Protein backbone atom coordinates (compact mmCIF):
# COMPACT_ATOMS: atom_id res chain seq x y z
CA UNK A 1 0.00 0.00 0.00
CA UNK A 2 1.28 3.46 -0.88
CA UNK A 3 1.39 5.63 2.20
CA UNK A 4 -0.56 8.36 0.43
CA UNK A 5 -3.52 5.98 -0.04
CA UNK A 6 -3.83 5.32 3.66
CA UNK A 7 -6.86 6.32 5.61
CA UNK A 8 -6.89 6.78 9.35
CA UNK A 9 -8.45 3.41 10.04
CA UNK A 10 -5.93 1.47 7.98
CA UNK A 11 -3.04 3.39 9.55
CA UNK A 12 -4.36 2.70 13.05
CA UNK A 13 -4.48 -1.03 12.29
CA UNK A 14 -0.72 -0.90 11.69
CA UNK A 15 0.09 0.66 15.05
CA UNK A 16 1.27 -1.19 18.13
CA UNK A 17 0.37 1.31 20.86
CA UNK A 18 3.26 1.14 23.29
CA UNK A 19 3.76 1.85 27.00
CA UNK A 20 6.99 0.41 28.41
CA UNK A 21 8.11 3.20 30.72
CA UNK A 22 9.59 1.94 33.96
CA UNK A 23 7.36 4.29 35.97
CA UNK A 24 4.05 3.70 34.19
CA UNK A 25 1.16 3.17 36.60
CA UNK A 26 -2.02 1.14 36.21
CA UNK A 27 -3.82 4.31 35.10
CA UNK A 28 -1.27 4.77 32.28
CA UNK A 29 -1.97 1.20 31.16
CA UNK A 30 -5.70 1.82 31.38
CA UNK A 31 -5.36 4.99 29.29
CA UNK A 32 -3.26 3.09 26.73
CA UNK A 33 -5.90 0.37 26.39
CA UNK A 34 -8.82 2.79 26.14
CA UNK A 35 -7.02 4.78 23.43
CA UNK A 36 -6.24 1.56 21.59
CA UNK A 37 -9.92 0.62 21.63
CA UNK A 38 -11.00 4.09 20.53
CA UNK A 39 -8.56 4.31 17.62
CA UNK A 40 -8.63 0.56 16.80
CA UNK A 41 -4.88 0.09 17.04
CA UNK A 42 -3.48 -3.35 16.26
CA UNK A 43 -2.20 -4.00 19.76
CA UNK A 44 -0.89 -2.58 23.00
CA UNK A 45 2.75 -3.38 23.76
CA UNK A 46 3.35 -3.70 27.49
CA UNK A 47 5.57 -5.40 30.05
CA UNK A 48 4.30 -8.86 31.00
CA UNK A 49 3.52 -7.68 34.52
CA UNK A 50 0.66 -5.60 33.05
CA UNK A 51 -0.89 -8.34 30.90
CA UNK A 52 -3.76 -9.32 33.25
CA UNK A 53 -5.00 -5.72 33.50
CA UNK A 54 -4.73 -5.09 29.74
CA UNK A 55 -6.28 -8.47 28.82
CA UNK A 56 -9.27 -7.64 30.98
CA UNK A 57 -9.73 -4.19 29.45
CA UNK A 58 -9.34 -5.44 25.87
CA UNK A 59 -11.46 -8.55 26.23
CA UNK A 60 -14.34 -7.35 24.06
CA UNK A 61 -12.17 -5.55 21.49
CA UNK A 62 -10.11 -6.43 18.42
CA UNK A 63 -7.01 -4.94 20.03
CA UNK A 64 -4.44 -7.56 21.00
CA UNK A 65 -2.21 -7.70 24.03
CA UNK A 66 1.41 -7.72 22.88
CA UNK A 67 4.02 -8.74 25.46
CA UNK A 68 7.58 -7.37 25.49
CA UNK A 69 9.80 -10.39 26.18
CA UNK A 70 13.41 -10.33 27.38
CA UNK A 71 13.26 -6.58 27.82
CA UNK A 72 15.17 -4.46 27.34
CA UNK A 73 18.50 -6.23 26.73
CA UNK A 74 17.49 -9.64 25.40
CA UNK A 75 20.33 -10.94 27.57
CA UNK A 76 18.40 -13.87 29.03
CA UNK A 77 18.80 -17.60 28.51
CA UNK A 78 16.75 -19.36 25.84
CA UNK A 79 14.97 -21.34 28.56
CA UNK A 80 14.21 -18.09 30.39
CA UNK A 81 12.70 -16.49 27.30
CA UNK A 82 10.64 -19.60 26.57
CA UNK A 83 9.30 -19.54 30.11
CA UNK A 84 8.46 -15.84 29.85
CA UNK A 85 6.77 -16.34 26.46
CA UNK A 86 4.57 -19.19 27.71
CA UNK A 87 3.72 -17.31 30.89
CA UNK A 88 2.73 -14.22 28.86
CA UNK A 89 0.49 -16.22 26.52
CA UNK A 90 -1.10 -18.02 29.45
CA UNK A 91 -1.96 -14.64 30.96
CA UNK A 92 -3.50 -13.32 27.73
CA UNK A 93 -0.80 -12.14 25.32
CA UNK A 94 -1.76 -12.52 21.63
CA UNK A 95 1.51 -11.25 20.19
CA UNK A 96 5.12 -11.61 21.36
CA UNK A 97 7.86 -9.00 20.76
CA UNK A 98 11.14 -10.53 21.93
CA UNK A 99 14.68 -9.15 21.91
CA UNK A 100 17.12 -11.50 20.22
CA UNK A 101 20.33 -12.37 22.01
CA UNK A 102 22.44 -9.59 20.48
CA UNK A 103 25.56 -10.64 22.42
CA UNK A 104 25.50 -14.14 20.95
CA UNK A 105 24.81 -12.67 17.52
CA UNK A 106 27.71 -10.22 17.82
CA UNK A 107 29.98 -13.14 18.75
CA UNK A 108 29.01 -14.78 15.46
CA UNK A 109 27.14 -17.56 17.24
CA UNK A 110 24.38 -17.66 14.63
CA UNK A 111 23.31 -21.23 15.40
CA UNK A 112 22.48 -20.08 18.95
CA UNK A 113 20.41 -17.18 17.63
CA UNK A 114 18.46 -19.30 15.15
CA UNK A 115 17.84 -21.92 17.87
CA UNK A 116 16.60 -19.20 20.20
CA UNK A 117 14.23 -17.74 17.62
CA UNK A 118 12.92 -21.20 16.67
CA UNK A 119 12.35 -22.08 20.31
CA UNK A 120 10.39 -18.88 20.97
CA UNK A 121 8.37 -19.35 17.79
CA UNK A 122 7.57 -22.93 18.86
CA UNK A 123 6.62 -21.81 22.38
CA UNK A 124 4.35 -19.13 20.91
CA UNK A 125 2.48 -21.52 18.60
CA UNK A 126 -0.11 -19.56 16.65
CA UNK A 127 0.70 -16.33 18.46
CA UNK A 128 2.52 -13.80 16.24
CA UNK A 129 6.21 -13.41 17.04
CA UNK A 130 8.41 -10.39 16.32
CA UNK A 131 12.18 -10.62 16.66
CA UNK A 132 13.75 -7.34 17.77
CA UNK A 133 17.22 -6.95 16.26
CA UNK A 134 18.19 -3.67 18.02
CA UNK A 135 19.47 -2.33 14.71
CA UNK A 136 21.36 0.61 16.25
CA UNK A 137 23.93 -1.91 17.51
CA UNK A 138 24.35 -3.71 14.17
CA UNK A 139 26.30 -2.98 11.00
CA UNK A 140 24.34 -3.10 7.72
CA UNK A 141 25.82 -6.50 6.98
CA UNK A 142 24.75 -7.74 10.41
CA UNK A 143 21.23 -6.38 9.89
CA UNK A 144 20.95 -8.46 6.73
CA UNK A 145 22.28 -11.58 8.48
CA UNK A 146 19.92 -11.11 11.43
CA UNK A 147 16.95 -10.78 9.05
CA UNK A 148 17.99 -13.97 7.25
CA UNK A 149 18.26 -15.81 10.56
CA UNK A 150 14.80 -14.60 11.61
CA UNK A 151 13.39 -15.71 8.26
CA UNK A 152 15.05 -19.11 8.58
CA UNK A 153 13.67 -19.50 12.11
CA UNK A 154 10.15 -18.77 10.88
CA UNK A 155 9.30 -15.84 13.13
CA UNK A 156 6.55 -13.61 11.76
CA UNK A 157 8.19 -10.18 11.93
CA UNK A 158 11.60 -8.58 12.15
CA UNK A 159 11.49 -5.46 14.30
CA UNK A 160 14.08 -2.69 14.46
CA UNK A 161 14.33 -1.55 18.07
CA UNK A 162 13.35 -1.85 21.70
CA UNK A 163 13.12 1.90 22.18
CA UNK A 164 15.70 1.59 24.96
CA UNK A 165 18.75 1.68 22.67
CA UNK A 166 20.80 4.66 21.54
CA UNK A 167 18.65 5.05 18.44
CA UNK A 168 15.36 3.80 17.08
CA UNK A 169 14.18 2.92 13.60
CA UNK A 170 15.59 4.64 10.51
CA UNK A 171 14.07 4.69 7.03
CA UNK A 172 17.28 3.16 5.62
CA UNK A 173 17.16 0.25 8.06
CA UNK A 174 13.52 -0.48 7.31
CA UNK A 175 14.24 -0.44 3.56
CA UNK A 176 17.18 -2.80 4.06
CA UNK A 177 15.13 -5.17 6.21
CA UNK A 178 12.26 -5.18 3.73
CA UNK A 179 14.64 -5.85 0.84
CA UNK A 180 16.18 -8.74 2.77
CA UNK A 181 13.04 -10.55 3.92
CA UNK A 182 11.00 -9.99 0.76
CA UNK A 183 7.24 -9.49 0.81
CA UNK A 184 6.16 -12.47 2.89
CA UNK A 185 7.42 -11.38 6.28
CA UNK A 186 6.33 -8.53 8.50
CA UNK A 187 8.66 -5.61 9.21
CA UNK A 188 8.01 -3.54 12.31
CA UNK A 189 9.60 -0.12 12.71
CA UNK A 190 9.85 1.12 16.28
CA UNK A 191 11.68 3.67 18.36
CA UNK A 192 11.54 7.40 17.70
CA UNK A 193 8.41 7.40 15.53
CA UNK A 194 6.71 10.54 16.83
CA UNK A 195 4.80 12.18 13.95
CA UNK A 196 2.47 11.31 11.08
CA UNK A 197 5.31 12.09 8.71
CA UNK A 198 7.64 9.67 10.54
CA UNK A 199 4.97 6.98 10.36
CA UNK A 200 4.28 7.46 6.64
CA UNK A 201 8.01 7.46 5.85
CA UNK A 202 8.40 4.10 7.60
CA UNK A 203 5.45 2.64 5.71
CA UNK A 204 6.85 3.90 2.41
CA UNK A 205 10.13 2.20 3.36
CA UNK A 206 8.34 -1.12 3.77
CA UNK A 207 7.13 -1.30 7.37
CA UNK A 208 3.89 -3.20 7.91
CA UNK A 209 3.69 -2.42 11.61
CA UNK A 210 4.74 0.59 13.67
CA UNK A 211 5.67 0.52 17.33
CA UNK A 212 5.10 3.91 18.94
CA UNK A 213 3.74 5.66 21.99
CA UNK A 214 2.61 8.56 19.81
CA UNK A 215 -0.16 6.64 17.99
CA UNK A 216 -2.88 9.11 18.92
CA UNK A 217 -0.90 12.11 17.61
CA UNK A 218 0.00 10.18 14.47
CA UNK A 219 -3.64 9.43 13.65
CA UNK A 220 -4.83 12.92 14.60
CA UNK A 221 -2.12 14.38 12.35
CA UNK A 222 -3.11 12.30 9.33
CA UNK A 223 -5.79 14.66 7.97
CA UNK A 224 -3.45 17.64 7.82
CA UNK A 225 -0.73 15.45 6.34
CA UNK A 226 -3.02 14.27 3.53
CA UNK A 227 -3.98 17.89 2.86
CA UNK A 228 -0.31 18.88 2.65
CA UNK A 229 0.40 15.94 0.38
CA UNK A 230 -2.41 16.82 -2.01
CA UNK A 231 -1.33 20.47 -2.10
CA UNK A 232 2.24 19.47 -2.97
CA UNK A 233 0.98 17.29 -5.77
CA UNK A 234 -1.00 20.32 -6.97
Amino acid at each position, binding site marked *: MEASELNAKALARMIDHTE*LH*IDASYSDIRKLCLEAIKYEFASVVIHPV*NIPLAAKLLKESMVKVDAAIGFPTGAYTIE*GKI*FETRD*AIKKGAKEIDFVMNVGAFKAGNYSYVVDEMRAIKAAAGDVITKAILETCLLTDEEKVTACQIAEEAGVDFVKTSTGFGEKGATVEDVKLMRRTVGEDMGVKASGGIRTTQDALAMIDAGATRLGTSAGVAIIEGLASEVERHLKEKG
Partner: protein
Amino acid sequence: MKKQALARTIKTGIQGTDVTENDVRKAIERAKQYPFIAYAVDTPYLELAKELFEGTGVLLTAPVSYPLGGMTIETRLDQIAFAIKVGADEINPSLNFNAIKSGNFSTVLDEIKRMVEAADDNLDVIVIPQFYILTNEEKLKVCHVILEGGVTAVKTNGHGSLCRPEDITLLRREFGNDLSIEASGGIRTTAQAAELLELGANFIHTSTPYSVLEDAE
Protein backbone atom coordinates in the same frame (compact mmCIF):
# COMPACT_ATOMS: atom_id res chain seq x y z
CA MET B 1 41.42 5.69 51.10
CA LYS B 2 43.63 2.80 50.00
CA LYS B 3 42.83 1.07 46.70
CA GLN B 4 42.53 -2.39 48.24
CA ALA B 5 40.21 -1.15 51.01
CA LEU B 6 38.04 0.73 48.53
CA ALA B 7 37.87 -2.34 46.28
CA ARG B 8 36.49 -4.26 49.28
CA THR B 9 33.40 -2.00 49.14
CA ILE B 10 32.84 -2.37 45.39
CA LYS B 11 30.34 -4.55 43.57
CA THR B 12 30.59 -4.47 39.82
CA GLY B 13 29.83 -6.46 36.69
CA ILE B 14 29.32 -6.41 32.96
CA GLN B 15 25.78 -6.35 31.62
CA GLY B 16 24.10 -5.15 28.46
CA THR B 17 22.50 -5.90 25.14
CA ASP B 18 25.60 -6.51 23.02
CA VAL B 19 27.96 -8.02 25.60
CA THR B 20 29.67 -11.07 24.09
CA GLU B 21 31.21 -14.10 25.77
CA ASN B 22 34.63 -12.73 24.95
CA ASP B 23 33.74 -9.39 26.58
CA VAL B 24 32.75 -11.28 29.74
CA ARG B 25 35.96 -13.32 29.77
CA LYS B 26 38.14 -10.24 29.36
CA ALA B 27 36.21 -8.18 31.92
CA ILE B 28 36.42 -10.93 34.54
CA GLU B 29 40.12 -11.48 33.89
CA ARG B 30 40.70 -7.80 34.65
CA ALA B 31 38.34 -7.76 37.65
CA LYS B 32 40.23 -10.61 39.29
CA GLN B 33 43.16 -8.27 39.90
CA TYR B 34 41.16 -6.55 42.65
CA PRO B 35 39.37 -7.99 45.67
CA PHE B 36 35.91 -6.81 44.59
CA ILE B 37 32.99 -8.03 46.69
CA ALA B 38 30.65 -9.19 43.96
CA TYR B 39 30.29 -9.41 40.20
CA ALA B 40 27.09 -9.36 38.10
CA VAL B 41 26.54 -10.78 34.63
CA ASP B 42 23.41 -11.37 32.55
CA THR B 43 21.81 -14.80 32.85
CA PRO B 44 23.37 -16.39 29.71
CA TYR B 45 26.83 -15.82 31.23
CA LEU B 46 26.21 -16.85 34.84
CA GLU B 47 27.63 -20.34 34.43
CA LEU B 48 30.73 -19.01 32.66
CA ALA B 49 31.29 -16.36 35.34
CA LYS B 50 30.88 -18.96 38.09
CA GLU B 51 33.62 -21.01 36.50
CA LEU B 52 35.94 -18.03 35.93
CA PHE B 53 35.63 -16.78 39.54
CA GLU B 54 36.10 -20.25 41.03
CA GLY B 55 38.27 -20.07 44.14
CA THR B 56 38.47 -16.25 44.26
CA GLY B 57 35.82 -15.59 46.90
CA VAL B 58 34.12 -13.01 44.66
CA LEU B 59 30.33 -13.35 44.97
CA LEU B 60 28.33 -13.96 41.80
CA THR B 61 25.29 -11.70 41.37
CA ALA B 62 22.33 -12.75 39.21
CA PRO B 63 19.89 -10.19 37.81
CA VAL B 64 16.13 -10.70 38.19
CA SER B 65 13.76 -8.71 35.97
CA TYR B 66 16.59 -6.28 35.46
CA PRO B 67 16.43 -3.32 35.14
CA LEU B 68 12.83 -2.41 34.26
CA GLY B 69 11.01 -4.67 36.71
CA GLY B 70 8.39 -5.50 34.09
CA MET B 71 8.54 -9.27 34.38
CA THR B 72 5.84 -11.29 36.13
CA ILE B 73 6.43 -12.88 39.52
CA GLU B 74 6.38 -16.30 37.83
CA THR B 75 9.21 -15.27 35.49
CA ARG B 76 11.13 -13.81 38.43
CA LEU B 77 10.80 -17.07 40.33
CA ASP B 78 12.02 -18.94 37.24
CA GLN B 79 15.07 -16.66 37.13
CA ILE B 80 15.70 -17.22 40.83
CA ALA B 81 15.54 -20.99 40.38
CA PHE B 82 18.08 -20.66 37.56
CA ALA B 83 20.36 -18.50 39.74
CA ILE B 84 20.32 -21.20 42.41
CA LYS B 85 20.97 -23.92 39.84
CA VAL B 86 24.10 -22.22 38.51
CA GLY B 87 25.42 -21.46 41.98
CA ALA B 88 24.99 -17.68 42.12
CA ASP B 89 25.50 -16.13 45.57
CA GLU B 90 23.13 -13.18 45.44
CA ILE B 91 20.29 -11.80 43.34
CA ASN B 92 19.32 -8.26 42.38
CA PRO B 93 15.60 -8.27 41.68
CA SER B 94 14.12 -5.05 40.33
CA LEU B 95 10.81 -4.47 42.05
CA ASN B 96 7.39 -4.23 40.38
CA PHE B 97 7.51 -0.51 39.60
CA ASN B 98 4.09 -0.42 37.94
CA ALA B 99 2.62 -1.62 41.24
CA ILE B 100 4.69 0.86 43.28
CA LYS B 101 3.68 3.75 41.02
CA SER B 102 0.05 2.67 41.41
CA GLY B 103 0.29 2.61 45.21
CA ASN B 104 -0.27 -1.16 45.19
CA PHE B 105 2.19 -2.03 47.95
CA SER B 106 0.40 -5.23 48.93
CA THR B 107 1.39 -6.75 45.57
CA VAL B 108 4.95 -5.48 46.02
CA LEU B 109 5.10 -7.06 49.49
CA ASP B 110 3.61 -10.34 48.31
CA GLU B 111 6.13 -10.58 45.46
CA ILE B 112 9.07 -9.81 47.76
CA LYS B 113 7.96 -12.54 50.16
CA ARG B 114 7.69 -15.06 47.34
CA MET B 115 11.14 -14.16 46.02
CA VAL B 116 12.67 -14.41 49.50
CA GLU B 117 11.04 -17.79 49.97
CA ALA B 118 12.38 -18.97 46.59
CA ALA B 119 15.88 -17.71 47.35
CA ASP B 120 15.75 -19.49 50.72
CA ASP B 121 19.23 -19.92 52.21
CA ASN B 122 20.81 -20.26 48.79
CA LEU B 123 20.93 -16.61 47.75
CA ASP B 124 21.24 -13.23 49.40
CA VAL B 125 18.49 -10.94 48.17
CA ILE B 126 19.39 -7.32 47.43
CA VAL B 127 16.43 -5.59 45.82
CA ILE B 128 16.56 -2.64 43.43
CA PRO B 129 13.92 0.01 44.18
CA GLN B 130 15.14 2.34 41.36
CA PHE B 131 15.18 5.46 43.53
CA TYR B 132 15.47 7.73 40.51
CA ILE B 133 11.82 7.17 39.63
CA LEU B 134 10.48 7.46 43.20
CA THR B 135 9.43 10.40 45.37
CA ASN B 136 11.02 10.59 48.83
CA GLU B 137 7.76 9.35 50.32
CA GLU B 138 7.75 6.37 47.96
CA LYS B 139 11.41 5.60 48.72
CA LEU B 140 10.69 5.30 52.43
CA LYS B 141 7.45 3.40 51.94
CA VAL B 142 9.13 0.91 49.60
CA CYS B 143 12.01 0.32 52.01
CA HIS B 144 9.57 -0.34 54.86
CA VAL B 145 7.82 -2.87 52.61
CA ILE B 146 11.18 -4.43 51.69
CA LEU B 147 12.04 -4.93 55.38
CA GLU B 148 8.57 -6.28 56.11
CA GLY B 149 9.08 -8.77 53.29
CA GLY B 150 12.23 -10.10 54.91
CA VAL B 151 14.87 -8.34 52.82
CA THR B 152 17.54 -6.25 54.56
CA ALA B 153 19.56 -4.98 51.62
CA VAL B 154 18.89 -2.50 48.81
CA LYS B 155 20.79 -1.40 45.73
CA THR B 156 19.50 2.13 45.19
CA ASN B 157 19.42 2.32 41.40
CA GLY B 158 19.90 0.26 38.31
CA HIS B 159 21.38 1.13 34.97
CA GLY B 160 21.24 4.62 33.54
CA SER B 161 20.48 6.68 36.61
CA LEU B 162 22.31 8.78 39.16
CA CYS B 163 22.75 7.99 42.86
CA ARG B 164 21.88 11.02 44.96
CA PRO B 165 23.89 11.46 48.18
CA GLU B 166 20.69 12.72 49.87
CA ASP B 167 19.14 9.31 49.33
CA ILE B 168 21.83 7.58 51.38
CA THR B 169 21.31 10.10 54.19
CA LEU B 170 17.54 9.63 53.98
CA LEU B 171 17.82 5.84 54.34
CA ARG B 172 20.35 5.95 57.18
CA ARG B 173 18.25 8.42 59.14
CA GLU B 174 15.08 6.38 58.71
CA PHE B 175 16.41 2.84 59.08
CA GLY B 176 19.63 3.08 61.09
CA ASN B 177 21.58 -0.10 60.62
CA ASP B 178 18.56 -2.28 59.77
CA LEU B 179 19.20 -1.82 56.07
CA SER B 180 22.35 -2.60 54.12
CA ILE B 181 22.74 0.07 51.43
CA GLU B 182 24.46 -0.49 48.11
CA ALA B 183 24.82 2.93 46.47
CA SER B 184 24.41 2.64 42.74
CA GLY B 185 23.93 4.75 39.65
CA GLY B 186 26.48 6.89 37.83
CA ILE B 187 29.30 6.41 40.37
CA ARG B 188 32.48 7.06 38.38
CA THR B 189 35.05 8.70 40.66
CA THR B 190 36.89 8.02 43.92
CA ALA B 191 35.46 11.23 45.37
CA GLN B 192 31.87 10.20 44.63
CA ALA B 193 32.42 6.78 46.19
CA ALA B 194 34.11 8.25 49.25
CA GLU B 195 31.23 10.68 49.82
CA LEU B 196 28.58 7.96 49.57
CA LEU B 197 30.50 5.66 51.93
CA GLU B 198 30.96 8.55 54.36
CA LEU B 199 27.20 9.19 54.33
CA GLY B 200 26.56 5.58 55.28
CA ALA B 201 26.55 3.40 52.16
CA ASN B 202 27.81 -0.12 52.88
CA PHE B 203 28.75 -0.87 49.29
CA ILE B 204 29.37 0.95 46.04
CA HIS B 205 27.97 -0.56 42.87
CA THR B 206 29.65 0.69 39.73
CA SER B 207 30.14 -0.56 36.19
CA THR B 208 33.38 1.45 36.02
CA PRO B 209 35.33 0.25 39.10
CA TYR B 210 38.73 1.21 37.68
CA SER B 211 37.83 4.87 37.33
CA VAL B 212 36.40 4.74 40.88
CA LEU B 213 39.71 3.32 42.13
CA GLU B 214 41.83 5.71 40.12
CA ASP B 215 42.34 8.46 42.71
CA ALA B 216 42.64 6.11 45.69
CA GLU B 217 46.11 5.63 47.15
